[in-house]
């Protein structure tokens, strides 16, 4: 454990911004888990008398047009953000990775699968997500599924690329020469060596899932708006841009910061994966 974590700390030590991003993400996770403790208004409590009131001691981030507490909704929103992020990433990985690996290891199957992925990629992604939502109905689960399918393709592509490369690695060849089965090779050689690129991909997908969900919300087809998600908070309150700017500011800030942090972390991870960067850090590979 320490062995595998160490380089990460080294990495973040050299990148203060990425470190900040990481800290922010941890804070968000804690906030999401402890939302009930952190806020003193239930996020769905309506107080029409107090609607659209600016930030105050009572309501730190003000209230929305229902008179709901924005702070509590923002905090609860992080739950949905996490849920969407984790959901989309899991879905994309759980489907994209097997497709990518199998395509690389079985070229004949791969030609068919990758062609299908090509076809899917040719579809404009946001429109595809939108269509899926309309087909499946509006719910958080369906939003996750719709965005997940969009990123299934890129994940499959990346996995495919990495697997193709790994397939040519000498150690895979070596395992082959020992009589290893395909399953063995996937389990012992391909998957473990794919973790870094997948981690990077996951962090970007997580970030883009937030933005994608926000776009769907904007078009009125995201998660049903009674669930506080940052995206639909933004979308719902965009008409108050002049009247109650805090309604756009806080959820917007959260989306930006989260996506920003994830991008930073992803970027740092990518640099770490780059062997040349590793060289600079001193543990020269070859």
């Amino acid at each position, binding site marked *: 454990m320490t062995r595998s974590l160490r380089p990460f700390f080294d990495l973040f030590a050299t990148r203060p*911004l990425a470190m900040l991003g990481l800290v922010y993400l941890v804070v968000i996770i804690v906030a999401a888990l402890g939302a009930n403790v952190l806020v003193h208004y239930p996020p769905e409590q309506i107080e029409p008398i107090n609607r659209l009131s600016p930030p105050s001691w009572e309501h730190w981030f003000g209230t929305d047009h229902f008179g709901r507490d924005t702070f509590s909704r923002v905090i609860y929103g992080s739950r949905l953000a996490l849920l969407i992020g984790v959901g989309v990433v899991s879905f994309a990985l759980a489907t994209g990775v097997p497709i990518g690996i199998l395509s690389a290891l079985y070229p004949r199957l791969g030609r068919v699968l990758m062609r299908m992925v090509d076809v899917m*990629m040719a579809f404009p992604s946001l429109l595809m997500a939108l269509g899926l939502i309309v*087909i499946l109905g509006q719910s958080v689960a369906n939003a996750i599924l719709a965005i997940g399918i969009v990123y299934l393709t890129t994940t499959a592509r990346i996995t495919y690329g990495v697997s193709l490369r790994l397939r040519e690695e000498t150690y895979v060849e070596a395992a082959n020469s020992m009589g290893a089965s395909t399953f063995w090779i996937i389990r012992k050689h391909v998957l473990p060596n794919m973790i870094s690129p997948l981690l990077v991909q996951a962090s970007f997908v997580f970030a883009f899932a937030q933005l994608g969900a926000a*776009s769907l919300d904007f078009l009125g087809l995201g998660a049903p708006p009674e669930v506080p998600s940052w995206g639909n908070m933004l979308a719902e309150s965009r008409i108050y*841009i002049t009247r109650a700017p805090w309604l756009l500011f806080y959820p917007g800030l959260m989306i930006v910061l989260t996506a920003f942090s994830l991008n930073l972390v992803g970027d740092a991870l990518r640099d770490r994966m780059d062997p040349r960067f590793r060289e600079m850090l001193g543990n020269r590979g070859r």
Partner: protein
Amino acid sequence: MLFYVLRRTGAALATLAAASVVIFVFIHLIPGDPIYVLLGDEATPEQVEALRTRLGLDRSIVTQYFYWVGNVLQGDLGTSIFFQDPVTLIIRDGAETSILLACVTMVWIVLLGVPVGVLAATRHGTWIDQGLSGIAMLLASIPTFWVGLYLILIFAANLGWLPSSGYPSIFEEGGLSNLRYLLLPSLTLAAPNAALILRLTRASMLDVAKEDYVRTARSKGIRPQRVVIRHILRNALLAVVSAFGFTFAALISEAVVTETVFALPGIGRLVVQSILRRDYPVIQGVILVIVCLYLIINLLVDISYRYLDPRVELE
């Protein structure tokens, strides 16, 4: 070369054929019915049935599909249920906006992404680099409509410098000056994409800068600027060019949100609206056209790639 293009075109057509089936099935999975949208609140069941028959929606999906494909092959994308206009005409009108928007956006992306990426790469590791990369990532993290709304508020409503929304065709009164209508939308759309291109340019510049042949170039005694431009940038752009293709294609669909915010008559918004009102022929037509565009652009990128990089075989 010709052979290659033909082969690739063949593959693209196969993809297109597969895509057409997917589009069709996909669209007919969408619940709801154009009939209700069209007839409104007071329709009687008989009216509904009559219209359904007239629109051919009572036939089986397979029949409808082949009927549609047959027409498409003759260049007829059908008639909009909602507008009663030929889909081709509707798309042609929207395509001008969307493609022009994508082009102007591309110009921004290239003008902002590439030089700034080069700057960041040449100042690698300094605060300039980190600042630029940070800003880029920030831009990539902001929801588009947020940017759009604020741009309208600032530049149109408050300062009054630019029009807030809409886009009159450049072939109509106003001519090319109508492009100013696309300024704010294209900036909105360009922001995240330019950021991605910037990062890609920077990364591949740094990659190429470590190549042996760059060292060879330096050893010849040519100036650093020339090394950057002729040896590093040229090779770095190879990676960026293929991203251009993807970006361009992606822009057309990403524009959905931008077109809605800025009330642009583009095909992105058209298709969203058509989905919402179940105008099947338009949805099918637009998506088919977008898929075609995507395939054409990728084909062009691949071909140009093969021109730019002599190592790649025209298989």
